[in-house]
Structure formats: C-alpha cells, structure tokens
C-alpha cells in the first residue's frame, strides 16, 4: 500500500519533468534552461509571429478644395482682395466686409460673409485722410466642441486635425444665424473657429470693442500691450482684470471697451448708453503701432488656454489706410495696410497656442455650468499642466497645410507677425531660411542692431515681427522649396505625442504649389496622416514605405493551435493526477 503510493508520487514527478520539456525553454527557470540545453541540445527554431496587415482607413482628401474661386485676386465692393494660394483661403466677401465695415456693404455681401450687420461698424474719417477712424467691433464668445444633453457628439464641432476635437472657447465675430454650417451638420459655422480673430486698427483710431458675452461663463477682455488708460471716466477700470479693474461681464451682458483720446483726457465722449448693471463702456486709444495681444482675464490660467486669446495689430497711420479689421483664423492678410505694403509683398499672422486636453475637454464632461465651474476652477490644477496639442492658427498638422502655408517667391520680403499664446514658449525654426526680428512686443528693434537667426525664441505671450527675405544668398534663404517652419520644442510637432503633428507648417515657393494650393512634396505618403486612425496610434508609423512589414504590427498569437492543445492536455492530465493522488491519500 505505502510503496505503491510512493511509486505513484514518483511517477507523477517523472511525468511533471517530462511535461516541462514541452514548455518553451524560455519559460523555465534559468538553471533548468542550461541543464536542458546540456541534456537535449539547443531548442529548435520557433518562427516569431508574422507582421499583421493593418487596413488603413480611407484618407480624407488632403485639400477639400471647397471654394477654388476664393483663391484668385479679386475686387469685392471696391475692396481689392489679394490672391491667396492656400487650399482653404479666406472668404473674400468677409474680407471686404471687414475692410469696409459690415454697415457699409450690400446685403448680398453680408449674407455671403455670414456676418451680422453690426459686426464691424466703421464711422467717421476724423482726420480727413481718406479712411475711417471710428471703429466698433463686436465680439461674441463661442464654445467649440461642447457638450450636448441630446447626443454624444460635440457641438459646434471644430477639428484641429483628423478626428481631434478638443474643447475650445473663442472670441468670434458677431454672426447672423446658426452656429453650425447648416441644419444637417454639427460642424461649426466657418466664422466660429480657433484662433480668436486678429483685430486690426489704425494708430490713433477711436476704437470700441464690444464684448457681447454669449457664453455661459463670465469673461472680460484685457488688451495686452495695446495703449489704453487704466481707469475709465465712469469710475471703473479698463484693464480687464477682475481683481484690480472691473467686474467680469456675466452671461447675456455686454461691455464696450474703447480706445479714445477723449477718455485719456477724462472727458465724456457721449458714446452709447450705459444701462446700470448691464452695460459699461471702456475707452482706449492706441497711440503706438505694433503687434499686440488680447485675452480674457477671468481665471486667466484657464480661459487663455481655453482659447480666449487673439492677436491685436495696430497699423501705422497713413492716408487712405483701410485696414482689414478682422482676420478670421489669422494667417494670410488679404487686404494689407499701407505701411505694410510699403515694405513687404505679403503678410501673415501666425498665432501659436497649445492645449492640455485635461483642461480643455472638461467642457465635454458635463452640461451643468456649476459642475464645470467646480471641475475647471477647483479640481483641475494647472501646476500639473502638460500641453499635448499645439496649434498654428487654430489647427494642427496636417490641417495647418490647408490654411497656413507661407507662400513665397524668390527675392521677396514677407512680413510675419508671430504670437506665442502657449504657456511653454516658442522656438520658431524655419528650414532653409534665417529670419530677421524687426519688432519685439510691437516695439521696433534698433534697425542697426537687428538680429537674423534660424531659431527665434518667444516667451509666453510674446510677439515678434519677422522679416522673411527669400534672397538666395545662403544666409536669408537657401533657395526655393517646401521648407518646414515649426516650433523646435520637439513635443510641439506632434499631436498628443504622435509625429507628424502640432503647429508645423511650411514656407513654400510658389513653383512648388499645385493648382489647389497643395505643396508638391517628395517624401512619404501623407494618406495615414489624414485618418483619425493614425493619431489613435493604430498604424505603424513607417507602414507606407515598408512593403515587407519589417516594422509592421506584430500579430498577437505566437503559439500554434496544435501545440497549445497538447500542452494544455498534458497540464490537464497532470492536474487530474494530482487531485486523484491527494484524494486517494485522504481516504487511505
């Protein structure tokens, strides 16, 4: 009896040892592995799993080419609109309305621009030099990619890159009608987009910026770098900061910010009615030209990053100087000021900003503004912020190439106005060129001491004016091409870590553009970049030029079915034997 049980146990051990020889050698303890190799020799070749075939989704068209007729040089309402070779150029009717004023254009132009009659009201020519000097601009606050209680999709939807829709707030021109393109889509009206529009006025103009708070949170506007008096004659501040200057503009309220010489002298201008608790008037007067900045100052550590920031350009005073009051989506200025036309052949507004989805996507997490206040103001902690999306003029690569290419020809001087709206600064690097910094924060740099370089550092909120000179002298330019221009902080040319992405665009010689304004590139196939799948990290990065799958996705299953069954069977028999053995011992 006893012997037979010992024999059984011994048999069991032998079986167990035999079973281990079926195991992949690598699964065994190190000391057993070397013994097994000595006893049985090297294990035989097991082929590693195959590369998996990844089906790449149908890519979006690189250039949707929605309005090819918008590209050409044209005249609308007597306003000359420069040629714009971008895939998605600015709406020429909107440009005309911003130059002449929405109060001075026909109903047809207004309808084609989608703007409200009072979006940009241009008035009197005070100095008699042939251009209007009284300007009223109405800005609303629009939420993009917000939450709906009725559906899972965000509304109004704005994609910064394929399938990427971070929550955003923007100052937007006053439009007429719906926030979406039409009733069939959730896509945002093209006037509602990031970045907030570039505001352009002439030095010395009497400017009113009316903030009409259409949003559900309180907001203000702080005019950063734009000459404005601290205090206003009606006993309130004029600086946008709730802690030192003014109460925030609550939802449904409006406020008029003014830039006027009268305010500085403390005189009543008589502009507009002041309604207690509902409307207040602010007066500002830009005496100095330059590239400035405007942003919301309510909980600015959040609201600036949510997108309530824009470029504010004060153009030098010249006769007959009709400036393009708003530049939607920044980028190419299709109707330039007189002073810029004196020195440059083209002008681009480049607004860089970044996003931390953990903040921006909070607006998708709840529809109750009280919960959102709690999550944004008190639960989110900016100290732990880390940006994961990087925008140039409201888009990330590859969409930047549809709107923000800098088009050049040889021997040209092009003006770039750059705003660093993100928190981590900007290391702007153009390939193939060295640019000259002419202005810092709107102030001209000593012309004798101007710096020419290929990395321009801008700290947070800083602006520079750059001169891009395409003279092929090995210094300013190395010749024509499709030269990238990007933030050299490495994370900034990714979309949440996936390259290529971020705020990357290009300086493209005209000869390298096709008829849709798309650059003729030499490198890899861009199709994966125009799928949400690529940025979901589902496509091995080198797939399109790796026909043999050297760097393909590794298939998940590594063990053949037969082997798996055999191995499982042996384990099963052994476990069964063990149970029987233990059971019989108990009985005995």
């Amino acid at each position, binding site marked *: 009896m006893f012997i037979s049980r010992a024999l059984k146990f011994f048999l069991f051990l032998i079986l167990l040892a035999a079973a281990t020889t079926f195991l992949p050698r690598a699964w065994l303890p190190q000391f057993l592995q070397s013994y097994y190799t000595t006893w049985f020799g090297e294990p035989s070749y097991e082929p590693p799993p195959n590369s998996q075939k990844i089906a790449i989704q149908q890519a979006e068209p690189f250039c949707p080419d929605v309005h090819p007729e918008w590209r050409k040089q044209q005249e609308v309402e007597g306003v000359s609109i420069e040629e714009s070779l971008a895939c998605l150029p600015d709406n020429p009717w909107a440009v005309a309305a911003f130059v002449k004023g929405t109060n001075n254009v026909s109903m047809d132009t207004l309808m084609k621009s989608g703007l409200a*009659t009072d979006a940009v009201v241009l008035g009197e020519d005070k100095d008699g030099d042939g251009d209007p000097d009284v300007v009223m601009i109405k800005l609303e606050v629009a939420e993009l990619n917000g939450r709906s209680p009725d559906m899972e999709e965000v509304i109004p939807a704005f994609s910064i890159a394929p399938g990427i829709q971070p929550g955003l707030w923007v100052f937007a021109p006053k439009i007429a009608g719906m926030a979406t393109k039409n009733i069939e889509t959730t896509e945002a009206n093209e006037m509602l987009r990031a970045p907030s529009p570039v505001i352009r006025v002439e030095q010395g103009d009497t400017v009113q910026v009316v903030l009409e708070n259409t949003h559900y949170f309180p907001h203000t506007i702080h005019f950063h770098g734009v000459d404005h008096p601290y205090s206003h004659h009606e006993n309130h501040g004029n600086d946008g900061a709730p802690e030192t200057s003014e109460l925030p503009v609550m939802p449904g309220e409006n406020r008029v910010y003014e830039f006027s010489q009268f305010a500085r002298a403390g005189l009543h201008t008589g502009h507009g009615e002041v309604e207690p608790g509902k409307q207040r008037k602010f007066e500002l007067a830009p005496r100095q030209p330059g590239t400035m900045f405007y942003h919301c100052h309510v909980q600015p550590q959040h609201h600036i990053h949510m997108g309530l920031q824009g470029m504010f350009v004060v153009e030098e005073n010249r006769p007959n100087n009709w400036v393009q009051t708003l530049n939607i989506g920044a980028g190419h200025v299709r109707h330039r000021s007189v002073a810029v036309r004196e020195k440059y052949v083209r002008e681009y507004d480049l607004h860089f900003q970044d996003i931390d989805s953990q903040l921006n996507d909070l607006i998708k997490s709840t529809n109750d503004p009280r919960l959102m206040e709690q999550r944004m103001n008190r639960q989110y902690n900016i100290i732990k912020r880390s940006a994961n999306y990087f925008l140039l003029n409201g888009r990330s690569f590859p969409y930047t190439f549809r709107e923000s290419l800098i088009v050049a020809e040889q021997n040209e001087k092009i003006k770039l106005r750059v705003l660093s709206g993100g928190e981590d600064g900007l290391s702007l690097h153009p390939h193939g060129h060295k640019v000259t910094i002419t202005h810092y924060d709107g102030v001209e740099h000593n012309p004798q001491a101007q710096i020419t370089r290929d990395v321009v550092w801008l700290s947070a909120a800083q602006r520079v004016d750059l001169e891009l000179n395409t003279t092929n002298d090995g210094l300013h330019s190395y010749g024509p091409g499709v030269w990238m221009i990007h933030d050299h902080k490495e994370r900034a040319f990714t979309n949440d870590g996936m390259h290529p992405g971020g705020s990357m665009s290009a300086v493209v010689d005209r000869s390298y553009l096709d008829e849709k304004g798309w650059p003729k590139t030499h490198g890899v196939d861009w199709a994966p970049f125009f799928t949400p799948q690529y940025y979901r990290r589902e496509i091995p990065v080198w797939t399109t030029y790796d026909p043999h799958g050297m760097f393909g996705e590794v298939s998940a299953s590594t063990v053949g079915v037969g082997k798996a069954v055999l191995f499982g069977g042996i384990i099963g028999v052994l476990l069964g034997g063990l149970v029987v053995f233990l059971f019989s011992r108990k009985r005995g």
Partner: protein
Amino acid sequence: MRFPSFLFITLLVILVRSVSAQPAAQESVAKDSEHAHHQHHVASHEHHGMQMDAGGMVMNENHDQQPRDCGAIAGEQKITVRAGTTYAQRFNGTIFAYDQHEWNIPPCTKVTVTLENEDSVRHQWMLHGLPRYLHPEGMFHLEVNGRGSKTGTFITPGAKKTYLVHCDVAQHMEKGMKAQLKVGGGDGNLPSIPGITAARYPETYANSSRKWAIVSASIVVLIAIELVLRLFWRKDMKNL
C-alpha cells in the same frame, strides 16, 4: 380573492392614465368660412426670405401661403416670447432660457411670434420641421441682436406634430434655450426641454450615491418589518 386584485390593477391603470394624460388645449379657433378659399399652391413660389437690419433678422416668414394639408386658415394667434438669463434661474444648471418652453397651437393657424430679448447679446427663436415647400430648410427664424424685439409670422400645418424651437447661438440650446411648439396637441415631447423632459444624456451628480443608500436602507427596513409581522402572525397561529 381574484376580484380585489383585478380591481386594484384597474384603479392603478386609471390613476397612471389620468396623471400622464396631457390636457392639450385644443381650442380649435374655427374661423369663418370666408377664408376658406381652397387655394392649391404648387411647390415653386417666392419665399419671403430674409429681412435683416442692425436689430436682428426675420427669416422665412409666411403670411398667406396655406400648408398643403390645410383647407383654409383656421385662425390667428399672437404669442410673445421673452428670452434671457433671468428666465434660466427657474431651472438649475441652465444659463439661458425663454419665459415659456412649450406652446400649444391649433393646426392651420397663422401665428405671429414676437421675440423679446432681455439680454444684451444675440438670441434666437428658431423653429424647425415646417414644410420645406414653404420654408427653406423647414425653418422659421427670429433673431434679435441684443435688447429689443423682432416679430414674424408663419402658418401651422394641419398635422399633429411637435416642433423643435431653440436658440442656435453656440451652446445656448444646450444650456437651456430649448423649447417645443405643439400643433394640434403635438406628437409627443422632445428630450431635454427645461422643466418638461429629462436630458437624453443626463448628468451624474455626486449625491446620487446617497440616493441609492436611501433606497437600499428602505429595502432592509421593509424586509425587517415583514419578518417581524410574520413572527407575530405565527404567534397568532399558535395561539389559535
């Protein structure tokens, strides 16, 4: 034994029905037959289009074209809608609202709507789902650019239907400005109408866990009561 339970169920059904039934005010303003011209309109005709000025706009009005399913214009109604943040105070978690979020209108009625905007920003009263042969995109639309008002007219079709009314300024519908207009009693309710229907994607509030704690506590207490009662009942049985 079967009879009382049957009676109970019947009573329950009557109770539920009386609670859920909408006392739809169908004051069908049957008008004089002098308006019954029986005009048959073809699909192609001039639209009133858009009237726009500094105060706002009125889009796709219809003063005189009968909807195809109306024999005649049955009557007229005027409604005034006030819009603004003030009205949102009635509904927790909203910011914008109308003074009313449901209107009941008889079929084939000429409705003149006045939108009074009490805020200093843009608001709209946009109605969707009207016949497309009368209204481009099926839409009738009032928009007021700030404080002030706009008035426009449309004619309700003959069918029972509930129409969506909202403000399409970005996020205004989502944050409260959503309403419904019921013609002939309507064909049900739309979701997420403040004060009327729940959101399709409702919020999760922190104290909902407390609610479940109360529910489970109630279950425990009821079981305890039942056990105690049974104990007494057994004692009674023994005594008997």
